[in-house]
């Protein structure tokens, strides 16, 4: 599925990286701890997270993620959005919770990084 499909399925708003909507998402992951992202996720993957501190963007850059989906529609700090835009990191935001978001994407065919 493409990033556009993900955004549609999760009724998500695109906060950064609008030019990446037609990129094919091959694998997904979900984590709130930065070291878990660093350990388990990698280039071109989409990661769902509830963690909104700007540090998550730095982690996404180091890990070379395709982008991040922020779940539960929290008040994302402007610095996080600014940093994502500066580095053109894809950033989606959904009102759905983590569990539902993961379930919807899995049911639609997106597989985890451990199922490669």
């Amino acid at each position: 599925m493409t990033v556009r499909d993900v955004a549609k399925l999760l009724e998500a708003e695109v906060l950064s990286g609008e030019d990446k909507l037609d990129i094919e998402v091959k694998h997904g992951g979900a984590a709130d701890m930065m070291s878990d992202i660093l350990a388990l996720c990698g280039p071109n993957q989409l990661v769902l997270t509830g963690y909104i501190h700007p540090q998550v963007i730095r982690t996404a850059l180091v890990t070379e993620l395709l982008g991040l989906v922020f779940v539960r529609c929290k008040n994302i700090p402007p610095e996080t959005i600014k940093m994502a835009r500066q580095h053109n990191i894809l950033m989606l935001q959904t009102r759905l919770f983590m569990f539902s978001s993961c379930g919807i994407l899995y049911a639609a065919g997106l597989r985890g990084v451990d199922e490669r």
Partner: protein
Amino acid sequence: MKLHFDVPGDDLSLAGKASSELKKALGRLGIDPVTIKRTAVAMYEAEINMVIHAHGGSADAEIGPAGIDIRLQDSGPGIPDLDMAMQEGYSTAPEAARELGFGAGMGLPNMKRNADDLRIESTVGVGTTVTIRITLPGSTTKAP
């Protein structure tokens, strides 16, 4: 090529900046992406540890034809039990670090996983020196 970074310990929002700069420098040198990612992740974890546990320190990177050598030094509290610290899930991260999304107990294991050679010398009350070696593909040079 040698690079030096001061890692400030008083501003958690800057944690990871040195690793990002090294990553960019490696990209400019045309190093392969897999090696760059391994280097960046290993150094990022070490840098974060230095900030959250030791009030910062310094990092030096040397990029040679055979590999990348990174040395991170701090004058922090030291690691009392290195064997425990190397175990996945073991963490002594303070609350402030957990608020930053760290403290999963994956830092040192992540460093080990990504480095070709990882050495940690630590003395309680004196500080810690972490040496990371990443071998470049095609190089047969062993770690010193």
